[in-house]
């Protein structure tokens, strides 16, 4: 496949971002490749009901 990109002009007034989260990118510029990968693990067994490990009051 052949394709042609003509960048005639790019002007942005202001960027207002709350958060750039894990494994994400804000790019003001050019790049060839971007590959963002993320694993987030919250399995059912990660919810543990236990007793306090140390006395809450001393």
């Amino acid at each position, binding site marked *: *496949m052949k394709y042609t990109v003509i*960048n005639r002009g790019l*002007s942005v007034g202001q960027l207002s971002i709350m958060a750039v989260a894990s494994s994400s990118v804000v790019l*003001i*510029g*050019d790049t060839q490749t971007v590959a963002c990968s993320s*694993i987030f693990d919250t399995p059912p067994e990660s919810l543990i009901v236990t007793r306090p490990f140390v006395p809450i009051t001393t």
Partner: protein
Amino acid sequence: MIIPSRASLVNWIRVASIDLAGTVQIGDSNQITPEAQVYAVQRELPIFNGDEAKDLSEFPIYSQEIPLPPITECVEQITIQENPVIKVGGIDIIGVAASSVLHVGSTQRIQLESRVKNIREFFSDPNEDKSNISPD
């Protein structure tokens, strides 16, 4: 093939906070490859001993392979930079999290990776509490 890249013109940047392995890069770079491994323990009460995770290699999440999409298409790209400047008035960011990047300038390759394991520990059963509250 190296495509000629543009210059980036940003008048001002305000970043309130940057987390672990987060990056603010001003200027061109060749490649960006941050990785973050997070083991997050949330407890009903903030009581921590500091030895919650001694060895992360026992969890497969930190070693399992993440598949990347195969790039098989043969693309012939021609880029013409008629106006070789990207203009941005200002950037206002509250937080840059783990393994993430704010990059002003051009690069060749970006490869980000984050692996997060989240543990929630309750001192009483939260589901049991919910059944007591329900009107049934």
